[in-house]
C-alpha cells in the first residue's frame, strides 16, 4: 500500500508539525511536550477545561476539534496508541481555568490506563479532574455491558456537547453530567468494506473477501463483530438503523443529531447516499433531524467504510449542539 511518507517512524511528528502549521490560528503546542496542543484562547478563567485525546490515525479526530466552544486541549499518541500520561497531564494543567478539568476519551485499555495516570498527576497538583469515557459503539458489546463498549465516531458529538457545556461556564459537575448524558444517548455502528494499512507496515492488517463486508468495526482497523455478504447502501443503512432503533428508546416527535462518518477512503458521494437513507428511516419513525454532519470526522487511516451515529436529543443536548463553536473541522453558528 502506497502512502505519502518519509521515514515511517516520523509520521506522527511530521503530521503534527504540518497540522500545527496548518491550524496555527486555532492551536499551539502545550509547553514542555510535542504531543499535546491547546486552543489559542485557553485557559479561560472560570471555565472548566476540556481535554480530549487518543491515538493518531483518526484525523481530524482529535486535533481538529480544538477551539472555542469545543476542546481546550488534545493529547496525541502514536498511531492507534493512547498518548502517555505526561502530555495528557501537561495539557490538563495548561488549560485549567480554576474550575477543574474534564477528560473525555474512548473506552480502550490503553487510553484508560494512561488518562487515569495523568488524572492522578493532575489531581496531585490540586486540580480536580473528572473523566467521561465514551462508549457509543453499540456493536462492540451487549446493551447490558454498555460500559464495556468502545468509543468511536460518536466521540465528536460528545465532545461538541461537552465543549458547549464548558463554554457556557457550567460547573465541573454539570459538565461531567452533560458529557455523560451525551455519551449514553449516542449510538454508533460502523461497517468496513476494506481494512486499513498502518504507515509502518504499509500492509493491510487482515483482508475482507471481495464479496464481503465487516459489520460492527471500530476505528482502529480491527475486524468487526461479524463478516457478512456485501449489501446495497440502503440495506447497510437499514441494518445499522434497525440496530440503533432497538437500543434507542425514542418516541415520534423526538429530535436527533446524526453523524455519517467516513473511515478514510469512503468518499463523500457515498456518504450522502447513506445519509439519504438514514434520514428516510428517521423520518419514518417520526424523528426529526435537528442537526447533521456528513464527512470525514473520525477515521481509521485509509479504511474503506463508514459509521452512522445518532444522538438522541433532549432540550439540553439540542441546545449544547447548537451552541457556537469554532475549530478546524467543526464549526457551529457565528
Amino acid at each position, binding site marked *: 500500500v502506497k502512502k505519502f511518507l518519509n521515514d515511517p*517512524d516520523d509520521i506522527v511528528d511530521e503530521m503534527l508539525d504540518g497540522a500545527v502549521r496548518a491550524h496555527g490560528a486555532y492551536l499551539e503546542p502545550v509547553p514542555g511536550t510535542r504531543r499535546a496542543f491547546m486552543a489559542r484562547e485557553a485557559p479561560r478563567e472560570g471555565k472548566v477545561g476540556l481535554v480530549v485525546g487518543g*491515538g493518531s490515525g483518526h484525523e481530524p479526530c482529535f486535533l481538529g476539534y480544538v477551539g472555542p466552544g469545543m476542546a481546550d486541549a488534545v493529547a496525541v*499518541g*502514536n*498511531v*492507534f*496508541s*493512547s*498518548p*502517555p*500520561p*505526561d502530555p495528557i497531564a501537561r495539557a490538563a494543567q495548561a488549560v485549567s481555568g480554576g474550575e477543574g478539568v474534564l477528560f473525555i476519551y474512548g473506552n*480502550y*485499555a*490503553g487510553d484508560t*490506563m*494512561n488518562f487515569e*495516570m495523568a488524572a492522578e498527576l493532575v489531581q496531585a497538583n490540586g486540580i480536580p479532574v473528572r473523566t467521561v469515557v465514551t462508549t457509543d459503539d453499540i*456493536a*462492540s*458489546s451487549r446493551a447490558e455491558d454498555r460500559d*464495556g463498549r*468502545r468509543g468511536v465516531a460518536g466521540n465528536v458529538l460528545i465532545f461538541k456537547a461537552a465543549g458547549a457545556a464548558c463554554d457556557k461556564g457550567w460547573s465541573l459537575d454539570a459538565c461531567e453530567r452533560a458529557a455523560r448524558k451525551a455519551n449514553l444517548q449516542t449510538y454508533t455502528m460502523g461497517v468496513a468494506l476494506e481494512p486499513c494499512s*498502518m504507515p*509502518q*507496515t504499509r500492509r*493491510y*492488517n*487482515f483482508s475482507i473477501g471481495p464479496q464481503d463486508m465487516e459489520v460492527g468495526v*471500530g476505528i*482502529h*482497523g*480491527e*475486524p468487526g*463483530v461479524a463478516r457478512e455478504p456485501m449489501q446495497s447502501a440502503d440495506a447497510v443503512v437499514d441494518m445499522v438503523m434497525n440496530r440503533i432503533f432497538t437500543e434507542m428508546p425514542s418516541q415520534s416527535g423526538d429530535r436527533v443529531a446524526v453523524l455519517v462518518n467516513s473511515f478514510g477512503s469512503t468518499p463523500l458521494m457515498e456518504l450522502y447516499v447513506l445519509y439519504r437513507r438514514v434520514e428516510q428511516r428517521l423520518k419514518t419513525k417520526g424523528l426529526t433531524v435537528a442537526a447533521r454532519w456528513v464527512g470525514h470526522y473520525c477515521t481509521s487511516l485509509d479504511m474503506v467504510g463508514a459509521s452512522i451515529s445518532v444522538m438522541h436529543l433532549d432540550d439540553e443536548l439540542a441546545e449544547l449542539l447548537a451552541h457556537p463553536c469554532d475549530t478546524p473541522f467543526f464549526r457551529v453558528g457565528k
Partner: protein
Amino acid sequence: MQSFSNSASGAIVLSMADRIVENRAYLSEIDGKIGDGDHGVNMAKGFGMAADRLKDGNAGLGEAMNTLGDVLMSEIGGSMGPLYGMMFTEFSEVIEGKEQIDPATFSAMLHKGLAGIQEVGSAKVGDKTLLDTFVPALEAFDAATADGKSFGEALDAFSAAAEKGRDSTVDMVAKIGRASRLGERSRGVLDAGATSCAIILTTLAEGAKERLAEPA
C-alpha cells in the same frame, strides 16, 4: 546457591531491545489479526529508545530496567507503556541496591512486577493477555526452586513455561482489551502481548543463565 551480578547484567536489557526490534513486523502482524496492528511498532519504538539511552553507558540490570520502565511509561503510551513500564519499574525497584541476584530475589522481582501489571490493568490469567505468559512462567520458576532445582534449571523452567503460556493464548477467547470485542472471532490466533512477553522473559532468562556463577 548460584546468582548473577546486577551491575554486570545491564546488557540483558539491550538484548531484549534487539529481540523486540527484530520482531517488530511479526508482533504488529499478530496484533493486526484481532487487534489494531500497532504492537510491534510501539514496542520497538520504546525498547529502541531505551537501548539508545543505555548503549554508551554502563548501567547495571536494575538501572537499565529503570530506564526502560521510564521510557515506556513516559514516551510510549498505548497499553504497553503503562503495563510494561510498570513491570520494569517494579522489577528495578526490587533488585536496585542488590549486587547479586539470587533465585529469591529473582522471584521477588517477578512477583512485584506482576503486582504492578495488575495494579494498572485488571486482567486475569485466561483473558488472553501477556499475563498468560507471565503468570505460568513465574509459577514454574517458583515451583522449580521449591523443588530444589538450581537457578539455571529454574530459569529453563521459567522460559519453557513462558513459551507454553504464550502458545496457550491461541485457543483463548479474549476477555479484555481490543480483541475482546471480537468474541469467538478472537480465538485461533496468538495474543500479541503474550508473544512479546515471552520474548522479554526468555531473553531475561537466557541473559541471567549466561551470567550465572557460584558466589565468590
